C-alpha cells in the first residue's frame, strides 16, 4: 500500500505491564527524548514521575489545573459577594424587613456557591483545554492494536517532532527496551 501524502507521527511500542511501561518511560527520558508519551487504560502511580512530569508549582508547565481552579474560585467568590452588595446597597436600596442594606451574613451562601461553581468549572474545562481535548481524531488511532490502550494495553510512543528523532533509531531503541509490536505511526487523511 502506498500513501503519497502521509506524514510521520512517531514510533509506538507496546509493553505488557504497568511496571514495564514505567521502566521503559524512565529509560526513554534518560535517553534524552522529550517529545514522547505513554498510554495506559488507567492512571499508573509513579508513571508521571518516570516521565518527568511534576506536580505543584514546580510542575506548572505540565499541570496548570490547580492554579486555574484557584483563579476560578476566587473570581466566582468575589463576583458573588460584590454583585449582591451592589444590588442591595447601590443599585436599588430597599428596606427589607428592617434588615441592613448590606446584610453580609445573608450574602455568604450565594458567595460560597459561586466560589465552588467557578472553581470546579475552571478545573474541568481547564483540564480539557490543557489536554487539547476534544481531539476525536488522533494519528495513534490508526494503529490497530492501540485500541487496547483503553482496555489492557500499555503503549509508549516517541513522536517525530522530537529533535533527536529518527525513525530507525527510535524503532531500535524501543525494541531495545523490550517493546513489542513496534510500528511507525503515520497520519493518514
Amino acid at each position: 500500500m502506498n500513501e503519497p501524502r502521509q506524514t510521520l507521527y512517531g514510533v509506538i511500542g507496546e509493553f505488557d505491564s504497568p511496571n514495564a511501561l514505567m521502566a521503559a518511560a524512565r529509560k526513554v527520558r534518560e535517553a534524552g527524548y522529550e517529545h514522547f508519551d505513554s498510554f495506559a487504560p488507567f492512571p499508573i502511580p509513579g508513571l508521571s514521575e518516570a516521565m518527568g512530569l511534576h506536580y505543584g508549582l514546580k510542575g506548572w508547565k505540565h499541570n496548570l489545573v490547580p492554579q486555574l481552579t484557584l483563579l476560578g474560585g476566587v473570581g466566582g467568590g468575589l463576583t458573588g459577594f460584590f454583585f449582591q452588595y451592589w444590588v442591595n446597597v447601590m443599585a436599588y436600596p430597599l428596606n427589607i424587613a428592617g434588615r441592613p442594606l448590606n446584610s453580609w451574613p445573608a450574602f455568604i451562601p450565594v458567595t460560597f456557591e459561586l466560589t465552588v461553581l467557578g472553581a470546579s468549572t475552571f478545573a474541568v474545562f481547564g483540564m480539557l483545554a490543557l489536554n487539547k481535548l476534544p481531539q476525536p481524531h488522533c494519528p495513534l488511532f490508526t494503529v490497530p492494536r492501540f485500541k487496547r490502550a483503553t482496555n489492557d494495553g500499555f503503549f509508549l510512543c516517541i513522536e517525530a517532532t522530537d529533535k533527536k528523532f529518527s525513525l530507525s533509531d527510535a524503532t531500535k531503541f524501543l525494541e531495545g527496551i523490550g517493546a513489542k509490536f513496534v510500528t511507525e505511526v503515520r497520519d493518514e487523511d
Partner: protein
Amino acid sequence: MSDHEHKYGIVRSGFASTNPEDPDNHPPTAEERELREYPLDIAAANAKAKSGTGKQYWRSIEELAGDPHFEDLLHREFPRAASEWDESVDRRGFLKLLGASMALAGMAGCGRPPEQHIVPYVKQPDGLILGKPQQYATVMPFGADAVGVLVESHEGRPTKIEGNPDHPSSLGATDAFAQAAILDLYDPDRAKTPTEAGDIRTWAMFQQAAQDLATAQKSVNGAGMRILTGTITSPVLAAQIEYVLKFFPQAKWHQWEPAISDGAREGAKLAFGRYVNTVCRVEKANVILSLDADFMANGPGHTRYMKDFYKRRNLTGPNDEMNRLYAVEPTPSVTGSAADHRLPLRASEIELFARAIAAKLDLGGSATLSKDAERFADAVAKDLQKNRGASLVVAGEQQSAEVHALAHVINAALGNAGATVYYTEPVEANPVNHAESLHELAADIHKSKVDLLLILGGNPVYDAPRDWAFSEFEQKLKKVHTVVHVSSHYNETSEFSRWHIPETHFLETWGDARAFDGTYSVIQPLIAPLYQARSAFEVLAAFTDKPGVTSYDALREHVKTVLGAGDAEKNWRKSLNDGLVAGTALAPLPVSAKFSPASLPPAKAHNADEFEFIFRPDPTIYDGRFANNGWLQELAKPITKITWDNAALVSPVTAQKLGIGRTIASRGGEHGQVRSSVVDIELSNGKVSAAAWVVPGQADGVVVLPLGYGRKNAGETGTNKGFNAYAVRGSNALWATTGGKVTVTNDEYPIACTQFHHNVEGRKIVSSASLEEYKKNPNFAHEKDETPPNGLTLYQNFEELGYYKHYKWAMAIDLTKCNGCNACVVACQSENNIPVVGKDQVMRGREMHWIRIDRYYESGLETEKDDDSEIPALANPPTYFQPVPCQQCENAPCEQVCPVGATTHSAEGLNDMVYNRCIGTRYCSNNCPYKVRRFNFLRFQDWETPSLKLMRNPEVTVRSRGVMEKCTYCVQRINNVRIESEKDNGGVGREIRDGEIVTACEQACPSEAIVFGNANDPNSRVSKLREKVNPRAYNMLGELNARPRTTYLGAVRNLNSDLEKA
C-alpha cells in the same frame, strides 16, 4: 358640601348628572332611540332564553335577541359611563395575558399586548373631572329605617358605599348590609326584563296589560284587587298606594315583613294605647338592659345606636368612666357578646325576667326566676334604680308585645322616657299588625275574593308562615287570576306570578324614605337602571290614570311639601347634597304608659326539659333578601364564624345531651371545614333537616333556627344553601315555640367555618380586664409584654436613611369597642376588589378577606379534643372579638423571605405588596405570624361577568391567579390624599391633616374601634392610642420583635361587683 371636601379630594357634588332621569340630559340618547325604533323580535328572544343558547347575562330583550346594533353598544359597556378610565377592562386584559398566554408561551415577554382603545365622552357631564371619583348622598331603605349613605362614583359607575356623616341613622358609619348593597346592584342574576308567564315582554306591553286589568277592576271598584308590600317608610310610595286605593275604593293594602315581629307595634299599643315609634338615645344611658334586643345589629337605627353606645366607652385613661350593658338573651348576639354581663335565658323566660325587674322596681306583678336569674335580676334592678333617668331598657325585635310593654313601663317608671328614650309618630307609612294583615289576605285568596294581586317586593311564597291558608301558598296564588310581582330577582314568588317586573335597585331610582327617627331622606340614583327595571312606584302608576308618571316627577312633587320656604330649587339641591331634609325628624310624642304589669295574666309555666325553638334573621343574609349576595354569604357570622350556611344552634350542654358530634375535617381543618351532625327538626308545621352547631353561651334547651337560607330560586349564589327555617315556621309560633322534636341522625354535614379554635392558648393575643382591674393596674395590657426595647438591635437604623421621617402610618384597634359586627370586613372587600371564593374554597381554608375578625372565648379549653370538661367553661363565656388586618410590621418576617422582593417596606412604614412582581412562593404567608396574607390559589377573580367589572374600584389592582395579597392600610387612599396635600399651596404642599386619610375599615366601623393616622404627629388620634401614651396599648405577639405598626388596646369590661363576687 365643604365639610366633606376632605374625603381624599372627592368633591361631593349635589347631583348625579350622569343619570338619565336627570332633567339636564334627560332626552333619550341616540342609541336608546335607535333601540326603541328597532323592531323587536320577542319570539327570537324567548326562544333563545328558553333554549339557553342566548347570553348568560343580558340587559334587555334587544341584546338577547342578538340585535347587532345592541351588540356593539354592549361592547362599550354602558356608553354613557364608558371612558378611558374603566381600568377593569385593560387590567383584565393584562392579567389574561399574564395568566393565559404566558402560561402557554412558557415565558414572559413573548407576544406583546394587543392594542387598547380610549373611549372618551361625547359630551362630558358638568362638574365631572375624569379620573376623580365623586360622592353622592342617598339612602338605603331597610325595614322601618333608611340608612344614609355616600356613594362613590367613578365616571358614572357607583363603586363603594360609605356612611353619610350628616344622616342620623348613619353618622358616617354603616353596617355590613349597606356595605354589601353595591354588589346587589351589579348582581348578574338580577331579573333583566318584564316577563309574563315566563315569556319576555316589554315595559310598554306591561303598561298595556296593566291598563286592561285596571279597567276590569275599575268596574268592580277594585273589589278583587290587593296590594302586598313590606314595611314602607317612603311617603311618595305610600301616597301612590293611597292614590291607587282611592282609585279602586274596595282594593286593600296588606303588609308582611318576615323578620320583624309585631311585638314592638302591639307592645306600644299595650303600653300607650296606640302605635308609636320608639327612639333611643343610647349615648345618654349609663346602664342599659337589653331584653333579647340586638339593638346594635338589628332593627331601626342599629348603626346609630352602636355608635352612640360606644361613645360612652372611650377609655383615654384609667379615670374615664364607661356605661354598662346587661344582656338577657337566649342566644349570643352581637349586642349580647359585647355586654358587660350576659345572662342566657330561654326566649320565653325573657318576659318572666322583665316582669321580675318590674316587680323589683315596685311596678306590680311578680315572677319567679331561677337562682342565677334572680341574682342577676337583683343586681340589674339595683343598678337601674341607681341610674334613674340615665338608664335604658330595650326590648328585642323578636320579643312579644308584653315584653315591649314592660320595657316601656319600666323606662317610664325610671324616668327614662324623654331622657334616654322618646316616642314619635310611627315612621312606617301605615303601621299594621303584619301577621293579621297577611292572614286576612290569605283568607281572601282562600275565599277566591282576589283576582288581581300586586306584590311589591318581598317573597311571600318563600317566607310566609306555613300554616293557615299558607300551607300551600303556591296553590292559593294560583287561585288569583293575576299576580303581578315586582322584585329585583325572579324568585320563588315570581314563579307563581303571571307578571314579573324587575325592581330597580335603590342606586338606580329616585325615591324617598324616613329614617328611624323620621328624618325625611331622598333617594337619588347614581346610574341608569342596568336592566329593564322599574320602581314599585312606576308599576303602581301603570294601573292608574297617570301611567306615565315617573318616580322623579312624583318625588319633586312631594318634596315641595317637605321642603321649607325659600328657593325651592336651592333647597332641593341641598337636600340631594345632604341626602336628607334637615329638621324633618319626628317630634317626640307626649305619650304616657298606661299599663300595669300586674294586669298581665299569670305567666304560663314552661317545661324546662322541653326544647324551645326560636327563629332569628340570619346575621349576614337577614331574612333571605341578601341570599344572592356573595359578600354576605362568605362573610363569617359574627358569633359562629360559619359561612355559606345556616345551622341549628344549640348550647354545649344540649349538644351533649342530644349526642351531637362534630369532626374537624383534615382538609381545611379549624380554619375551614368542620363536619357536624345533621338533626331532624319536627315542629307542628313541618319537618326540616339541619346541620347542628354548638354555640357557647346559648341558653340550654334552646334551638335557634336562623331564617333566610334554603332558597329555591335566589340566583347562582344563593340557591340551595343551608336549610329553610321558614318551612317549619307557623303563624302560631312566629318567633318561638316548644313541643318540637329533635332527632340526631348519623349523617354529617360539612360546614365552612373560618375559625373553629376559640382559645388563645394563654398567648399574648387578646388582653382584657375589668374596669376596676384597669383602674388598679392601667398597664394590664402590656405589663407582661416581652417586646425587646427599641434600641436593642444590631440592625441598621433606617431613620438615618430617611425612612419613617415624614409620615409614619399606624393603626390602633380598640378591643373594648369591637363587637364583631363585620362592617369593616365587607367595607374592605368592597374597597379592595377582594374576590368571593365560594364554599368549597372556604372549606379548604382559602377565603380572601384582608381583615378578619377572630373570636375568642375566655377560659375555654381546647375545642378540638371532644372533652366534656370544657362544657361548664363554655356555658356563658366572656367573648372577645379581634379584628386582624396586616400588622405592617417594621421588621416584617414576610419581607425577608420573599425571593423576588415583591414585598418590601415603604419609606412611610407600609409593608408594600407588589402584585405584579409576586411569583407566588407563599413563603411570606408561611412566615407571617399573624397569617393575614391571602393567596389566589386559583383564578378567584371573575373576569367575564360584565356587570362585576363595572363594580371594581379602579384605584386598586385586580389580582391575578397565583399572586399573594393582603391589607395595605388602603394605600390607594393614602396616596390620593398625599398627592392632594402635596399639590396644595401652588405645589409647595402641606402636611396631611389627621383624619384626612380614612381607611375603608375605619370608615365603616360604627364604634370607631379602628383608628388610622400618622404616628409621627404627637397630636394625631392614633398617636394617643399607641404604646407609652395609652396604657392599654399592646402589640399582638410583641415578643417576636416584628414591631407591628398596628397596636391593640386591651378590652375592658365594666363589671358589676355584685355579680362578680360568689
